[in-house]
């Protein structure tokens, strides 16, 4: 038996409410608002209260997928990433770094956004990196 309460931040709006995810034997079974949070003081909206419902949805993507003849087939990480790397390299050589763009995300962490813009700038060589701040 393993039961955990893990303090984290709501993935929805910009309020940044803190809550505990209740995890029993590898299954997330509930959300408990954090009362000592300076942001939400133990309160949540309906979206926050139910955030545990989508996390382990059976529709989550679990394998890299490659399009082939109009449909997707499962692939390993090596195959998928080698394919992306070779295509990006080829496009960069043929059309220049500014023919490639990256969409960073307002729904991932700071560390991940940092790594994505670093990848765009240092690896691809373009400042074509943006996210949906305006949307």
């Amino acid at each position: 038996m393993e039961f955990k309460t893990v303090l984290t931040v709501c993935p929805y709006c910009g309020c940044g409410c803190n809550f505990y995810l209740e995890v029993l034997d590898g299954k997330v079974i509930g959300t408990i608002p954090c009362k000592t949070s300076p942001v939400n003081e133990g309160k949540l909206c309906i979206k926050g209260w139910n955030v545990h419902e989508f996390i382990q949805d059976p529709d989550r993507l679990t394998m890299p997928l490659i399009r082939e003849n109009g449909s997707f087939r499962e692939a390993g990480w090596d195959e998928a990433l080698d394919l992306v790397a070779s295509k990006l390299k080829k496009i960069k050589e043929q059309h220049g770094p500014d023919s490639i763009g990256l969409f960073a995300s307002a729904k991932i962490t700071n560390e991940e956004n940092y790594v994505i813009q670093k990848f765009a700038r240092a690896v691809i060589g373009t400042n074509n990196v943006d996210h949906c701040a305006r949307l």
Partner: protein
Amino acid sequence: MTNSVDEFELSDCIFITGSNTTSSHPIVATRILRAKKKGAKIIVADPRRVHIADLADLYVSHRLGTDVALLNGIMYVILDKGWENRAFIEERTEGFEEFEKVIKDYPPEKVAEITGVAEKDIETIAHWYATAERGSIAYCMGITQHTTGVDNVKTLANLAMLTGHIGREGTGVNPLRGQNNVQGACDMGGLPNVYPGYQPVTQFQIKEKFESAWGAQLSDKVGLTIPEMTSGLLEGSMKAVYIVGENPLLSDPDASHVEEALKRAELVVVQDIFMTPTAELAHVILPAACFAEKDGTVTNTERRVMRTRKALDPPGEAKTDWEIIADLSNRMGYPMDYSSAEEIMREIASLTPSYGGITYERLEGEGLQWPCPTKDHPGTRFLHKDRFVRGKGLFHAIEFKPPAESTDDEFPLWLTTGRLYFHFHTGTMTRKSGALTGEIDEQYVELNPEDASQLGISTGDEILLTSRRGQIRAKALVTDRMKKGEVFASFHFVESNANILTNPAFDPIVKIPEYKVCAVRVEKAAS
């Protein structure tokens, strides 16, 4: 936000505009409603009579896209009555004379005509806000998602400077950010013109600093925004897009145009947690970990950097976004050998002055609000205390401009778009939740009873909503929350996507699309 969320409780007048606060930022609304209980005056200006308008001391419904006119009218009254803060204007600002000249053109009678707001209400707003001890402004996408988005924001800044309601606790110009890490994505340089910490890509010393830190040649050419990348794909100058955790097919204006653009790309990579409509168009899909499956930080609307923590392993082969990018980078010959998110944060802190004092250890407890430049800095509750970033605050002389699109006989109504309380953004997460879909799981287009009766439409009827770009089918919800001539649709539902209709006209400076106003026609659908 210039100020912190809990500071709303200290305000004695809160002016909310273009924000459906109880619905889209419920926990910010908590503080605003507490302020009201303590006696603060709450003013709501919004074309839609949103829930918080019911709870306000004064609600005005200006016509869509007339924000600058309304605000200039309020400032006309403030100047006319001598309610401006002369000391603040003289000590802390510049550009006042030019600004004042423009304001003189916005007497209440003219503004009432443009906006549909009664003169006496314009005067009351001016009175309450200007004479408050601590006046605070809260706004959201109702202000920014216009071709005049920048004008609207600058006009709000004018209002705060005119009255000196900035740089103190309980005051400020407070944009409520719509996604849990939209602040952080901007802070981290997820923008085409700046490195982390808003350091311009065009500045030589900055470029040099990053070149030496990253050991790579960098470009000093400002990159493309998302709408520009879409156009680039259509024109053929762009060949590949790598999309992480975004669903532009639903979230971008004129969705058919976005779909066409993605179909023309040589390479579309989508890294996401679900098979989104955008992912359906990808050549390669990479499965990502969701928020509950990784360590890291996010930065909320009040600039508070907070820890997210791993509660679960990602499903199947899914990995965190940073692990995938680092792996790809290694395969492209640029080594990224981070061992943890914490290690990445150390690099961020070393290159980003406003995050300089942030460490995981210090984030335990309440987190830290940037700017936090050094390891012993306590973080910053509110900005612009003694000076603005540029030194003096600059008044902008801004004239009212109408929306990009006009109504006509064929498209006689205005459409405005936004979120519902029960769902989030493009619905990829919230539509997996039974508790939320049990509340509502389909598009209801909201329209005014008078328009509805003229069109012979009742709540629950199937209708067609058509703009110059496309058509969607939806159900009707007849409600007096909408005023005559204006209708509302959300963008949560792929099968009835409001962004098929919206106008890809952008603010010339920041390229934000005009989601909040376009011309449409409503008709009853043949059953």
